[in-house]
């Protein structure tokens, strides 16, 4: 079976020779959940954002859903990828001038040219999956952070993506709101959604992920199954990071 994400030697450097990504290679198979961990500034967000073309890279090759992009950053290919890949952001990034349902139906109607009624039906279904269908006519600022993030997940699902990217989806939430979002993500994983998740939530990584990738200064330090990573990480650097995370 074709893997969903194949990254080969991705490298992105800033001027002054700083490297955001340093020879990063990884694969994600269909239906698997990859959790990306690492200290801040380690390039986690940069990495995940290259997957749908929000970031460019200088060297290497990326294959998403069978579409290969290289450092030339071909707009057309990236558009094709974006139609099949959903993304959830740290700050939700809902459109404040649109109602919840309009937020969700915008892309299906405009990008996939689906009929408004059909998109709304599907949107309501997704909202009920997320447990927030009663808010469909409200506007983003009337919802709590956790609810907004679940709307953002529903919006990402509306294009029926084959891969979901999560960029620290719970970092901007109140502690008691984190679980409602994580539960929604768990449900998606159970349904077989392929996901790449940047997060610091150890419990989520332990329960849901198939592999944990640890990144530091743009380099892949190790990629291990969660039970090994959290109990007996191979590298000194990962253990140090996990200790730090435990203390907090």
């Amino acid at each position, binding site marked *: 079976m074709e893997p969903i994400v194949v990254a080969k030697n991705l490298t992105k450097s800033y001027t002054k020779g700083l490297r955001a990504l340093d020879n990063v290679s990884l694969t994600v198979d269909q239906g698997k959940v990859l959790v990306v961990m690492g200290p801040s500034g380690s390039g986690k967000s940069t990495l995940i954002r290259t997957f749908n073309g*929000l970031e460019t890279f200088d060297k290497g090759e990326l294959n998403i859903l069978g579409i290969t992009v290289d450092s030339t950053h071909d707009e057309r290919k990236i558009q094709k990828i974006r139609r099949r890949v959903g993304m959830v952001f740290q700050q939700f*990034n809902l459109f404040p*001038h649109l109602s919840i349902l309009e937020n969700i139906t*915008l*892309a299906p109607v405009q*990008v996939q040219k689906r009929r408004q009624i059909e998109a709304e039906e599907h949107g309501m279904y997704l909202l009920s999956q997320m447990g927030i269908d009663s808010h469909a006519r409200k*506007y983003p600022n009337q919802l709590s952070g956790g609810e907004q993030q679940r709307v953002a997940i529903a*919006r990402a699902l509306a294009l029926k993506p084959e891969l979901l990217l999560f960029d620290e989806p719970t970092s901007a939430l109140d502690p008691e709101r984190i679980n409602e979002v994580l539960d929604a993500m768990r449900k998606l994983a159970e349904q077989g959604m392929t996901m790449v998740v940047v997060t610091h939530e150890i419990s989520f990584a332990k329960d849901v992920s198939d592999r944990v990738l640890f990144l530091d200064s743009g380099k892949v330090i190790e990629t291990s199954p969660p039970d090994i990573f959290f109990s007996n990480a191979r590298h000194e650097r990962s253990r140090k990071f996990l200790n730090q995370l435990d203390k907090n």
Partner: protein
Amino acid sequence: MLKINTDSIIISFKNLRKILFSNLFNSIITLLIIVLISVSCVNTFEWLIFKADWKVVISNLPLYAFGSFPPNEQWRPATWIISLLSLSIFTLCGPEWRWLRKNLLIIWVGTIPLGLYLLYGGIGLSPIMSRHWGGLTLTILLTVCSSFLSLPFGIVLALCRQSSLPLIQKVSSMYIDGMRAIPLIAVLFFGQLLIPLFLPVGLEIDRVWRAILAFTLFVSAYIAEDIRGGLQSIPNTQIEAANSLGLNQYQIIQFVLIPQALRIALPALTNQSIGLFQNTSLMAILGLVELLGVGRSILANPEFIGQYIEVYVWLACVYWMVCTIMAVLARHLEQRMTINQANF
């Protein structure tokens, strides 16, 4: 209930006395100002009621409203103005019918072709040339048409100024900065006197449309800057979110950027349109008989010579009334939007 009221009045009265009559100097100043205010009030009312001769206003009311529009066709501009007025009232305190509220904007835009049809005539109505248009009708027409045309033009200019293509960006910056460096009266002169010289023989633009064109060229530069401010205050993450959903550049502009930028720029845009309404009075100098022009031509009539104050007080009232209606409408629109508006 009543007791609390009288108590609070007594307290505030005591406070007033403490502030205004705390010592001899303050007391004298206070008394002086009271005398000044009352004298001027008395004089104003005396003038308004006894001295002023309002015949110059009352006998010329149709002239102020319609200019030299043929008397037996004056129901046409009257219909237009009344429909605008009733639409304003409806917008402000009409019922909350969802389908109607949704289409209110379209109805408002629809008043422009309606007005033009009623004024020009044509199908079913006797045609009337634009040189017969005048008065408040012409003032409103100039304002409405120029605002309506300069909004899309301003949006395009603002987008071009944000463009990543250097040529487009430079040209629109030059246009905006250039327009803002020229006084409006110069642009209007250009429109009235120079455009006819530049145009090939046989092609002629109506004087009213030349004025509208000049206003549009001028105001759109300012509108572009207001909208640029709106565009710049939209966080970049909005564009990223739209990108991640596969929307293309034009869809992002249409569905994400412009609606948000317009909401943010709305108070500034209101300012522009009220300013535009007042600036149409400059056309009186350039020979259009709009509201101020009508006033001037009435004052030139030997019968009413010297009655400047009556005419200008009356004109000020009319301008004030229309501006207030515009401001109230705009505030209403703002409030309706902030109900749904997020905090950025």
